[in-house]
């Protein structure tokens, strides 16, 4: 167990390295630089000032030197300084990353709960109206763009019914107790997490249904029934546990795309997460910030994937840690 964790962690290092080099090259291939954007926005035309800023931003050095310097500073756990925000990259990201994490975790929770439940229901009631309705719903939520779903949910539940706030993460300008604050965030979280989670719930439901049907045909299920276990116990303890494996695989793969999908949902619900920061940073070619977000993002995805691997061991004892 410990070996697998260590091995996974060691594998993260070349991954991060590749993320840095690839994205550094990509952002330098895109026309325009942070220097261009900043000086044009600030209307700086004085040649002396331009030279001074070139030096401050470090763009007076060759690209290879800039890359080497960046990698060296990341190795010392320093993500650099963002002149656009006038603050260290790490500080700016840490102000916004927790919001994205909360949204992602809530969306994963909703996706798993809704997806797995729907999949199990559909497989038990296979080829009935329930099965068809669930499949129809799954196709709908899979096909509907999440930003459209988000706007429709806002119009319905926030504007017309007034059950939920239209956006943001906290009620602004209200001082609450810690418990009140948690409730407040949860209240704001419902719509964005549902809009983001339903897309993944749709895939989970489809995969879960197929997987359940496949496992239900296996011999050990017949044995479980034959030895007199109740229908519910057979489904929950025998079929479902074994049918979960593909879901866990899928979950590991989709955590990465969920980080990307949250950018759109964050825009619709003005959720103060990493999405808007990443978007603005790409647009302004603010490469220390883009790389900082991507490095932390890939770290996050790598850690999630490692946890998924550990989850395999727990779910299926036949898989051995090697």
């Amino acid at each position: 167990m410990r070996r697998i964790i260590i091995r996974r962690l060691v594998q993260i290092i070349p991954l991060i390295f590749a993320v840095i080099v690839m994205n550094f090259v990509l952002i330098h291939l895109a026309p325009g630089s942070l220097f261009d954007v900043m000086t044009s926005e600030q209307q700086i035309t004085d040649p002396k000032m331009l030279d001074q800023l070139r030096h401050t931003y470090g763009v007076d050095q060759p690209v290879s030197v800039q890359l080497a310097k960046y990698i060296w500073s990341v190795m010392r756990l320093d993500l650099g300084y963002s002149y656009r925000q006038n603050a260290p990259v790490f500080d700016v990201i840490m102000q916004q990353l927790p919001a994205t994490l909360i949204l992602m975790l809530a969306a994963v929770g909703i996706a798993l709960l809704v997806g797995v439940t729907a999949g199990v229901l559909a497989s038990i009631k296979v080829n009935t109206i329930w099965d068809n309705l669930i499949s129809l719903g799954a196709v709908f939520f899979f096909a509907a763009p999440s930003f459209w779903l988000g706007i429709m949910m806002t119009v319905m539940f926030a504007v017309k019914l007034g059950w939920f706030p239209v956006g943001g993460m906290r009620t602004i300008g209200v001082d609450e107790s810690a418990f009140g604050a948690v409730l407040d965030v949860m209240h704001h979280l419902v719509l964005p997490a549902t809009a983001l989670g339903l897309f993944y719930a749709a895939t989970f439901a489809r995969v879960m249904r197929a997987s359940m049907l496949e496992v239900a045909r296996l011999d050990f299920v017949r044995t479980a029934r034959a030895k007199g276990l109740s229908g519910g116990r057979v489904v929950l303890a025998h079929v479902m546990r074994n049918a979960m494996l593909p879901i866990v695989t899928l979950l590991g793969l989709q955590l990465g795309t969920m980080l990307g999908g949250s950018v759109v949902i964050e825009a619709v619900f003005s959720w103060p997460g990493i999405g808007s920061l990443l978007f603005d940073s790409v647009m302004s070619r603010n490469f220390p910030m883009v790389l900082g977000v991507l490095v932390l993002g890939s770290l996050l995805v790598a850690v999630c994937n490692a946890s998924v691997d550990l989850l395999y061991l727990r779910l299926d004892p036949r898989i051995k840690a090697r």
Partner: protein
Amino acid sequence: MSGFSRRDFLMTTAGAVLASGLAGSSSAATATPKRGGTLVGTWGGFEPQSLFVPAGGGSSPYFTSTKVFERLIRLTADLKFEPVLALGIEPAEDFRSYTIKLRPNVSWHDGKPLTADDLVFNAIQYWKPISAGVTLDALQTAEAVDPLTVVLKFKVPVPEFFLKSVLAGKAGLVIPKHIYDGSNIITNPINNTPIGTGPFKVKEWVRGSHVEYARNDNYWNSGLPYLDKLVIRWWRDPASRSAAFEAGQLDIGTFNPIPAPDIARLTATKKFVAETKGYSNSAWITSVEFNQRREIFKKREVRQALLHAIDRSFIADTVFFGRARPSLGALHFSNSIFFTKDVQDYPFDVKKAAALLDAAGYPVKSGSRFKMSLVSAGWFEENVKIGQYLKQAFEDVDITVDLAIPDRATSLKRIYTDYDYDVAVSNNSASIEPIPQTTQYYTTDGIVKGAAFRNATGYSNPKMDETVSKMAIETDEKKRVSLVHEFDKLAASDAPVLPMVDLEPVTIARSDVRDHSLTADFMGESWAEVWLDR
């Protein structure tokens, strides 16, 4: 006004009261302002990179910093200067020096008093080198005569309207010397929590969400601000802003906060008003630029022909849903001081365009006159549509068009650094005073490689340079207006770059938000007078 007949209106005394209310702005004060409440505002763009960007940084930091920092004077909606931090700005007889009297008993948010030393610091170390740049090139010295009086000395005569316009404009914010002295103003981390003299203090900035301002209880204008709290919040999606308005979670949004089709829907409920006042000192245009470094576009007839080929009413009505007007000359129609109709116009006329192109030596050969690269700057959604429309319009006069709509950074680089375009679509916002924001598109010294929103066409005409130089030092207001007309005429007939449409941005506000949009650049005002009628 639909509820009143004209007769009722004239006959009743109630009508007279209503008339005074309605004739002013929709938010004109007829009631006594009420104290208190929290106002949630936004604008049609995104979160700023920093709450205050000393050198400008675009509309978003301008919006957030002007609630904290104030200027010496401000320009009202009817284009009169009003005192803010200065009680008076008086020119000497030769207009080479100006005496500024500061308002007494003004203090910074940290309690230190505002003095003449602050002003000297701003003039020499902030305005001239950083925020105003070449605009204040003529400024030589700033000297504190007594603790509340400063004399600014210039190399040449400086027109009064010009100087006041600079001081009331984007570059004229007054920042505290005791905080910035000795530091690099541009990179000082305090710019994320600025300290000014304004009616609001920064309380908390939650990145990605909002900034909360608390009332400055020691504000020099006692009784103001009316609000207890101001929140500026950002949504990335216009449809979400409409939803926030409807759900009662947003009170006011400046600069086209919501999708154009939603404006009629929201105002029809009478719960919201749409206000177009409050933008004249930051008037936006969409312009077309012709690169003079290309042989074809160096010919004036070609530029004029292309202008005739564009249906500007179509752009105004279809692309902007009527929230724009076809331009005339180089100045925005809302510039009531300098605007003139007496300039060459380019009505939509495909036949005339074709004839001009034939005459210029570009007849149709095997289906095409010539090939052009058209770059439409993708920073506004409308520019995407305008780019597509221009491609069609130019193809209608048999020009082969290679259209590119790059993102912000690439557009800036292609148009203003690399000059890599034949025809470009761009935008800018201009103050009432045409120098330098408007003139720098036409003058030779406006050509600065890598500096955006100025002469990128390479146009250079000694007569133009001479007219603008005269404008810069003409101290007689009337003569100056006629010089601006002369400039505008030349700009319109030479047409190296011309506005296609003058935009009419709209502010959406709940109808119980009062006394907004009363100044010439409302988004950049302190909002001390805004109050809630609840």
